[in-house]
């Protein structure tokens, strides 16, 4: 599966299906600080992603202190 990451924007490839939470763990990304979008649809942590899916891992943390 192709996985789009942000900050900086880049794409990585994984083979084999896995859950959203496992993908985030493998990428060492916080579940509280990211959302995962599969083929344009938001999906929960226990959704299983397949080889042909287009995935975006979107960070949600932003902003300065003001």
């Amino acid at each position, binding site marked *: 599966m192709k996985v789009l990451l942000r900050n900086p924007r880049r794409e990585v490839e994984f083979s084999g299906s896995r859950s959203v939470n496992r993908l985030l763990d493998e990428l060492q990304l916080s579940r509280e600080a990211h959302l995962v*979008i599969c083929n344009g649809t938001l*999906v*929960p942590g226990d959704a*299983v992603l397949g080889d042909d899916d287009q995935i975006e891992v*979107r960070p949600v*943390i932003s902003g*300065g202190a003001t």
Partner: protein
Amino acid sequence: MTAVGSKCRVCKAPAVIDLPRHNAHFCAEHLQQLCRRQVAKAIDEFDMFTPDDRLLVAVSGGKDSLAVWDLLIEAGYQADGLYIGLGIGEYSTDSGGYARRFADERNLTLLTIDLRDDYGYDVPTAAKATGRVPCSACGLSKRRLFDQAARDGGYDVVVTGHNLDDEAAVLFGNTLRWDVDYLARQLPVLPAANGFPKKAKPLVRLTEREMAAWCLVRGIDYVVEECPIAAGNRHLSYKESLNAIEATSPGAKASFYLGFLERMAPLLAGRSAAAAGDLNDCTRCGAPTTGDVCAFCRLVEKAGAHDPVPVEMVLTRGRRR
């Protein structure tokens, strides 16, 4: 996708998000219902404003400001937006585009100010010229210009998109320093006083993850990239620390911040009133200040006289994931 995940707690449809702090999953429709209820509860609980008030929303083009504007308009409030072009290179160009498209598509009123065009400086130049941390120069400029626009435009309340994560991170920092005056003022609504307009934060009961999800399920395009100057700042490191705690103790952020509001803030109320006293009118612009010339006028004077500084010159730390 080979298999969908859990079902929505409310309707049993396929869920789009898991929210461990609620120990539940929600579909798109019931995620929106949860967000609407939390915003309505915050507005009511803290007496933020009524449908008769004219609201000015501080709009950055990011998820939180567009989400709060969307939620307020959907709920029937009179809300215009104000976008400030900060001159942070491509990031500002992109974020302004998202703000304008959101307003245009919904036929909403978006006021705009450009620091370079209207005041002769931008955030990178202000940081370099004054020796301030860029986020400090940015925050000072935004606060002052939002206050002024609200007064000039006859708005009753300035609304910002600060969410639960923002407030918990600020509370964390203020607590680490035991900065009692800042703690006393860290409230979701500040009344109009001493020449400052009323300010309200309707998203304080919702996390940034919930706000990003709101935008996704509502089809709101927003600037996803992080501000290149904010990357690596202390505020973000506090958020990461709190998220590490949240991972093992779901609900910890809400308990920390909302518990502060319920049990600690009332004890500090007198301190807040005392700290707000003794303000003068700035001799140049008339805005409230503790001295003769306000910090914003001093910043404009210094930054306006400085050669423009490209954003790359104030990127002192590397980008982060």
